[in-house]
């Protein structure tokens, strides 16, 4: 069984694309081969800066012959139908077979597809893989029309048989004919050479200074780097992304370590690390005793006669120039922070657009500050401190350092806030208000940071809801899902008790004010500002809006309140947007809790109740309900509830009425019935107050007490009794079961 070796040799492939491209080559080639009937034993793909390679072992020498039987028209069918069948099957009339079927004599054709040699199939599949390769970005070059990530220079494609004889697969793409040759390292190789097999290929590449396997290159780099650092009592700062990238920039990694000038060691370590990584692809080397970054590791692509001395000196020089820039930014920024304060930077953000409809960063910061003031008391932060923090939290966006290194936003803010002598809570909020970014990021816990972090994310979400730019499908350019998850994680991790509705409503109104300020009359803006104040008092938009409207109805100089007026539109729109955004939060919450192993139907059952905007409450309920349903009592009670609900729903459908109240113990006929009345009274007396006190364990306990009487009732009693009075009374009794259970959660949503 032959082995296949393919190499696509090109100019330098971007490091970030290599691993994916190797996998794509493997998948597309092997899929194509298998589809054509060529199965194989194993396949492995490789990438270097200049090549993608694929080795497929144990390929069939040719695809198997297949035959398929196809039933045709009846013998007496019109000639046209028979001809059509012959064309479709690709056989001649003399090859047809006639069989007797129930309906008469019918033609049958046997279509035989002879096997094809592997080389032929490989050539076809490879050509189509090359032509349709899924590069994230591809290009043309010269006068050709082929697209590849960078100019493709040669194709190596050989089949090696069991005897070790290699045969070139004859094929050509855009004038590049496949052969059995390749070349090694650009500078320290020995030109083109031919190969016989994968082993031969890999060995000759190594001889010519190319390590084919990216993992082997990465391991080598890491090993050498840690050895060099260890020898001097230092540690390499781990960075897997950088390691993978560097392994994609070299074919023959040579690891060199150099020092950072004494002048630069005063820069914040994050600045050193970022500057070295972003600009130079250097690893940072830390002194574990001082925690300072004192050296760097760079990876060259070759050996030299001077053992890398020239290369290292050059790199050191470039680094010094870069770090001079960084120090220049740092010192300038510190001077501004100390002399003018961070608010001066915030003011400059009025020239920076956040989003074209949502206005400048400066305007956004003011909205965040307003919301942070409202949230502060609920998270234990001082309102004035929260506002102060919100006003400077994004100031560093104006700093030179963040302009140069956007990924240092927040962190630089913290340094600069400290330099400006701002309170430590404010400095911390500068950094922490962006958190959490990733799903595994730490969540802020300091009160001021919490207030600003929540205000920031809620302002973003409400803003994009207000201008109807919600995420759709895989499109979420403003990372709104991440913002919503951030809010959820902050609330849950800190056990915060907030009604999101209130803040969502308020912030939507703030956005509506900002969006309409240019076109609306001052009266209209004033009225909306009043609504904002009322929301702070009433807690929800509807009541606040009505209160303001009622006050204006009588007044002579009230703004336009008619249909289509700004105020009416806002009045109609805000509740819808708010409901929609809350549903978005609920969707994210479900995903989040499901990832943590909670049943989605349990969450749904709890979300159906009032108070869905208090996420901590929802989760507490869901936790208690989930635990309860795992117990025997819980499982049985659920069955009892479902039985009651089914009977009741059927009866209600049939009778066209809703049985909701009026069950009276005096119509109870059996002991079980009477016992159930007593049990429901007892449960009701406990569940109401327990829910009120948010003591879900007690509420569940009271539910559990209902289980035995409900079971006994269903065992002994026929609900649909002959006597209509008795029947109705029993249905009303079932309605009580339903009502009591639904106080705790919407059990109809529980599956099973």
């Amino acid at each position, binding site marked *: 069984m032959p082995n296949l070796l393919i190499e696509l040799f090109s100019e330098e492939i971007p490091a970030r694309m290599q691993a994916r491209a190797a996998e794509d080559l493997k998948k597309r080639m092997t899929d194509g081969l298998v589809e054509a009937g060529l199965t194989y034993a194993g396949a492995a793909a490789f990438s270097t800066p200049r090549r993608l390679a694929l080795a497929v072992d144990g390929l069939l020498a040719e695809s198997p012959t297949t035959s398929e039987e196809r039933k045709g028209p009846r013998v007496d069918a019109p000639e046209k139908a028979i001809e059509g069948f012959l064309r479709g099957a690709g056989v001649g009339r003399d090859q047809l077979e006639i069989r007797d079927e129930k309906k008469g004599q019918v033609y049958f054709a046997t279509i035989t597809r002879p096997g094809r040699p592997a080389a032929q199939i490989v050539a076809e599949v490879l050509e189509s893989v090359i032509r349709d390769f899924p590069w994230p970005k591809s*290009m043309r070059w010269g006068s050709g029309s082929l697209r590849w990530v960078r100019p493709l220079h040669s194709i190596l494609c050989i089949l090696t048989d069991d005897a070790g004889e290699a045969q070139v697969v004859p094929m050509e793409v855009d004038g590049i004919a496949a052969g059995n040759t390749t070349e090694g390292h650009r500078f320290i190789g020995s030109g083109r050479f031919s190969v016989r097999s994968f082993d031969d290929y890999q060995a000759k590449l190594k001889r010519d200074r190319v390590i084919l396997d990216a993992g082997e290159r990465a391991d080598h780099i890491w090993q050498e780097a840690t050895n060099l650092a260890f020898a001097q009592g230092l540690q390499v700062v781990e960075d897997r992304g950088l390691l993978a990238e560097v392994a994609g920039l070299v074919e023959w990694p040579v690891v060199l370590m150099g020092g950072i000038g004494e002048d630069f060691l005063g820069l914040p370590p994050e600045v050193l690390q970022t500057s070295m990584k972003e600009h130079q692809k250097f690893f940072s080397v830390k002194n574990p005793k001082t925690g300072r970054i004192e050296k760097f590791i760079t990876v060259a692509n070759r050996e030299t006669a001077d053992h890398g001395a*020239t290369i290292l000196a050059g790199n050191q020089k470039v680094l010094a120039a870069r770090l001079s820039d960084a120090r220049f930014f740092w010192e300038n920024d510190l001077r501004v922070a100390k002399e003018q304060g961070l608010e001066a930077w915030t003011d400059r953000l009025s020239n920076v657009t956040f989003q074209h409809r949502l206005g400048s960063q400066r305007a956004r910061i003011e909205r965040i500050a307003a919301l942070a003031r409202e949230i502060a008391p609920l998270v234990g932060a001082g309102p004035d401190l929260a506002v102060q923090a919100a006003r400077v939290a994004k100031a560093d966006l104006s700093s030179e350092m963040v302009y140069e290194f956007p990924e240092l936003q927040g962190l630089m803010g913290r340094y600069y806030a400290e330099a400006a002598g701002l309170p430590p809570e404010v400095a911390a909020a500068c950094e922490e208000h962006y958190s959490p970014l990733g799903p595994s990021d730490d969540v802020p816990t300091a009160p001021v940071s919490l207030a600003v972090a929540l205000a920031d994310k809620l302002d973003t979400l409400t803003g994009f809801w207000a201008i109807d730019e919600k995420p759709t499908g895989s499109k979420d350019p403003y990372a709104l899902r991440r913002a919503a998850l951030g809010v959820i994680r902050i609330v849950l991790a800190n056990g915060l008790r907030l009604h999101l509705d209130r803040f969502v409503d308020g912030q939507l109104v703030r956005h509506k004010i900002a969006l309409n300020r240019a076109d609306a009359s001052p009266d209209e803006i004033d009225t909306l500002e009043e609504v904002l104040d009322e929301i702070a008092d009433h807690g929800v938009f509807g009541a606040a809006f009505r209160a303001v409207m009622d006050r204006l109805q009588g007044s002579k100089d009230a703004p336009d309140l008619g249909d289509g007026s700004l105020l009416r539109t806002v009045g109609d729109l805000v509740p819808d947007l708010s409901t929609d955004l809350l549903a978005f939060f609920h969707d994210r919450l479900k995903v989040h809790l499901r990832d943590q192993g909670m049943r989605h139907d349990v969450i749904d059952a709890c979300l159906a109740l009032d108070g869905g905007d208090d996420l901590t409450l929802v989760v507490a309920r869901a936790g208690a309900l989930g635990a309860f349903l795992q117990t025997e009592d819980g499982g049985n009670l659920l069955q009892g509830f479902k039985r009651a609900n089914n009977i009741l729903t059927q009866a209600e459908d049939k009778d066209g009425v809703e049985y909701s109240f009026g069950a009276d113990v005096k119509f109870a006929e059996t002991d079980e019935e009477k016992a159930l009345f007593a049990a429901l009274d007892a449960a009701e007396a406990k569940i109401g107050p327990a829910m009120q006190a948010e003591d879900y364990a007690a509420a569940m306990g009271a539910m559990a007490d209902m289980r035995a009487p409900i079971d006994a009732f269903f065992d002994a009693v026929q609900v649909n009794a002959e006597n209509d009075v008795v029947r109705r009374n029993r249905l009303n009794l079932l309605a009580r079961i339903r009502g009591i259970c639904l106080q705790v959660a919407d059990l109809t949503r529980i599956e099973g």
Partner: protein
Amino acid sequence: MARQQEKPRSFQEIILRLQTYWAAKGCAVLQPYDMEVGAGTFHPATTLRSLGTQPWAAAYVQPSRRPTDGRYGENPNRLQHYYQYQVLIKPSPPDLQALYLGSLEAIGIDMELHDIRFVEDDWESPTLGAWGLGWEVWCDGMEVSQFTYFQQVGGHDCHPVSGELTYGLERLAMYVLGIDHVMDMPFNDPDAPIALSYGDVFRQTEQEYSRWNFDVADTAVLLRHFEEAEAECEAILACDDTDPKTGLRIVMAHPAYDQCIKASHIFNLLDARGVISVTERQSYIGRVRALARQCADAFVRTGAGGYAG
């Protein structure tokens, strides 16, 4: 491997060696364009000649101006006026990387001792409506050139594709000559009777232009010039293809493109004066791009642009 070149001794020697090298490789060695531009790419020998089907090979030095980079001659690496060396070959030859590496050897970079790398860098010029794929070329961690395969210019797909090389001459020369501050770099031979440093030639002009660019340039005048250049460009392109005086078909792509270059540079000056807000910025860039597009449209209707009708 090629024999080791003797090290050059001055800035101008590096330029001369590049000129000689690319001349030997068959490029027409052109002179700089006689207008203020932000980069060598703006020279019509690149922007316009990368369009259409006619083969092309040119190399030239282009003085380039970036008003916002002015540092009064004090920053060791930053200048508001500097030189780029530009090579454009259409169609891009298959051995363009090797040709490029040869040029580094020609200016005294010893391939046996240095680490040359091609690091992904996609090029895009929003003002020219152009983009391409390629790399920044690193020598021992320092970016010494941009290497780009043009895919689109002025909104037109490039067929065939041009290969473009851009060398930042000061930075490259400082590296080769081992100089830390640009102003200290020998401009001519350091043993010449009148040895001149880069600072002797340019320190004063850097100061003068930094002051003018940042604080003095009359923004009202500049704004008017921008509008005028824009209007003139459009007026030129609105003319009939046939010249009424000679009766010849003369599409004035180049004069129109001069106005586009002018508008682009004025925009850069306005930007340095800090009078363009972030939102306006996009709109100015869009206006220049619209001009570049129209000029490109016009050029492909000329003989040099491959027009045969």
